[in-house]
């Protein structure tokens, strides 16, 4: 029973409390690049979660046979092979989305999140906990990506999954799209606001202030 609750914690912790994107700021590059529409965000999330879970399982299975000195090479080879498989599947069945994602599926290989989990967790734990942990981290990443993708597509185009949600002003509705939402800076803003929200619910995540303002140097402000 204790084992099961521990497993549940491994799975649920990375969702919000230990979220890889908002707490550890990992995997930012793809989180910013592929979130212009919800469809690409969802595809990217699924691809990353699959790659992460499978690679964690593989690395964990052979963890006692990987020499320490070449462990990164071995991990990257495993991750890269899985990424190639995923990329081929996407190209075969979802050609349009695959084109929209361009290089970012391939770049899952170098995603800090994948290497971070295999290096930090899968290398030291049995396959099942390693896969659960990787799956939880994948879900945490997906949560942020889908949230960002949804917000950006909704306010940038008035659509969700390419279907109209907010009637556009051009077509007789009331909503004027915020074209800024489709540009990269807005992903930074939204992610920053998201980190702010998470850290105001979990104040222990906030970083210690680097400077302390002088006390009483100025007369009453």
């Amino acid at each position, binding site marked *: 029973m204790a084992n099961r609750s521990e497993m549940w914690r491994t799975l649920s912790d990375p969702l919000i409390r230990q979220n890889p994107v908002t707490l550890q700021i990992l995997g930012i590059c793809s989180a910013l690049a592929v979130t212009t529409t919800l469809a690409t965000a969802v595809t990217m999330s699924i691809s990353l979660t699959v790659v992460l879970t499978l690679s964690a399982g593989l690395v964990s299975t052979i963890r006692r046979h990987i020499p320490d000195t070449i462990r990164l090479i071995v991990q990257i080879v495993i991750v890269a092979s899985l990424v190639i498989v995923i990329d081929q599947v996407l190209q075969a069945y979802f050609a349009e989305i695959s084109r929209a994602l361009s290089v970012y599926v391939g770049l899952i290989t170098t995603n800090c999140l994948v290497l971070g989990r295999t290096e930090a967790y899968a290398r030291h734990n049995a396959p099942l906990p390693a896969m659960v942990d990787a799956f939880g981290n994948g879900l945490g990443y997906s949560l942020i990506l889908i949230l960002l993708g949804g917000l950006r597509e909704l306010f940038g185009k008035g659509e969700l999954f390419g279907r109209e949600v907010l009637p556009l002003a051009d077509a007789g509705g009331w909503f*004027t799209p*915020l*074209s*800024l939402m489709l*540009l990269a*800076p807005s992903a930074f*803003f939204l992610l*920053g606001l998201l980190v*702010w929200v998470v850290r105001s619910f979990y104040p222990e995540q906030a970083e210690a202030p680097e400077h302390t*303002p002088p006390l009483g140097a*100025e*007369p*009453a*402000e």
Partner: protein
Amino acid sequence: MIRGLWNRETVALMLLAAYLPLALFWLWLGGSEALGRLGLSVLVVAIWHLVFMLVRAQPPSLAALTTALAVAMLAPEDLGVLRMVLGITFGVVMGELVFGGWGRNVVNPATVTLSFLGFGFPAFAWPAFDDPTAWAAIPAALIGVATGTMPAPVLAGAVLVGAAAAAGGILPEPVLFAAGIALVLLVADPVTCAATTLGRWINGALYAALVALFATGWAGAAPVQIAVAAALLTSLAAPLLDEAALALWIANRRRRHGRT
């Protein structure tokens, strides 16, 4: 400066006094529509200052009025209430209040607001200014320098380079007017301009040079758009300019006195 009399709010009041000629001429020529824009900006900025006072115990500042004036004067026209509120909210919260209020911000909140509105709603026309409003920037700058609240080197550097560019014929008159108003309202801000004297000279010169560059190379940009973009880039470069000025000073001292 006399200790005890000069605090943050005195500086804000003096800045307001400096902006009075500009604001009065603009209101006089703009009429009730201008008054409405100013009222809306003041209201939104004041509400956010109030929220941060209540939630984070950050003292509100009279500088809110200067921000509101700059936004009301330079924001694109006919945006409608909702977009104005969105833009001002973003600029004031992300540009100033999250850093701890006026005096701790890195970029001018009005510059952030205007850039946000410009990038977010590119379809709306930027305002144009009548001659008297633009000329009123000169007394504003003079009052600011006389009271010591506007950095004189920034203004001098900008005027120097701007005059050279205008003499060379690469600054058309509308751009010159818009750049002058933006110089007073956005660039010559005591908080977000460079802090060292050398850095301030370069800061002003950089602003004028960017305006000249955009005026010649940016096809189809409105004068105010050019000025706001130059102001944003300049304020982002200000810490770098300070760093360079300090490094130069340290290098000079090492050359004169051996090891520091």
